[in-house]
C-alpha cells in the first residue's frame, strides 16, 4: 500500500475536521430531519443518511467516494443524553 506523507495526512485530517465542525454546527437542524440516524458529511454537505452503517456505506461507494475519508456520525434523538 502506498505510504502517506505527513502533508497528505495533515490535509486529510484538516478536511475531516472541517466536516466534523460542520456536523456539530448544524446538529440542531440535522435533528429535525434525521434524529436517530447516521449522517455522512463530505465537503460541508450531507451525502447520505441511513439507519444502518452497511447501507450508508454502500450508497456512498456507489457515488464513487472513498468511505475512509468521509465523516460519519450519529444524530442523537431530541431530549436524549447519550452516556457511553
Amino acid at each position, binding site marked *: 500500500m502506498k505510504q502517506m506523507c505527513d502533508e497528505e495526512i495533515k490535509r486529510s485530517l484538516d478536511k*475531516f*475536521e472541517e466536516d466534523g465542525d460542520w456536523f456539530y454546527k448544524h446538529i440542531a437542524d440535522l435533528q429535525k430531519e434525521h434524529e436517530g440516524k447516521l449522517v455522512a458529511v463530505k465537503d460541508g454537505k450531507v451525502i447520505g443518511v441511513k439507519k444502518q452503517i452497511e447501507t450508508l456505506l454502500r450508497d456512498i461507494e456507489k457515488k464513487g467516494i472513498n468511505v475512509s475519508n468521509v465523516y460519519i456520525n450519529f444524530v442523537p434523538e431530541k431530549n436524549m443524553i447519550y452516556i457511553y
Partner: protein
Amino acid sequence: MMKIPLKINLVPEHYRISVNINVIPRSIHARPLLIEFVVDTGSPCTLISFNDAKRLNIPISKLSKVNPNVSLGSRKFERYLLPDVDLCLKDEKGDIIKIKSKSLTVLKPTTSLTQRSMTPSILGWDFLLSNNFRLVLDAPNKESYLERVD
C-alpha cells in the same frame, strides 16, 4: 513539550470532547481511516466502533479476539485486536504526530442491529497512560488538550 488540542463540541444537552485521528494499519491490508474518537477516561481501553470498523473494510473474523468483552451503555461488544497501527494526530502547530499502537481493538456488537449505530470510537485511559499524556480540561472556558514532556 508536546501539546495536542482536543475538540469540545456541543451536542444538544451536553458537551463532547474528541480528537480526530488518522489510523494507518501496518500489518494488515486495510486503507488508512479517519476517525473521530470521543475522549473517555472512564474507558480503560481505546476502541474503534463497529461503524468505523465497517469503513476499514476488513472482515473482523480475520482479527484475533481479545478478552474480556466490553459493555457500553447496556450494549455488549466483543473486541478484536487491530495490531500494529500508526495513530496520526495534529499538534498545536498543525504538525503531524505519529504514535504506534499495538493494542487498538475493534468492536463487534452482540446486541440488536437497531441499537448498535450510536456507539462512537473511544480514546481511553490506556492511550493516555501508555503515551505519558496528561489530559487537561478547562471546562468553564471549553478548552482541553493532551500534553507531555518529551
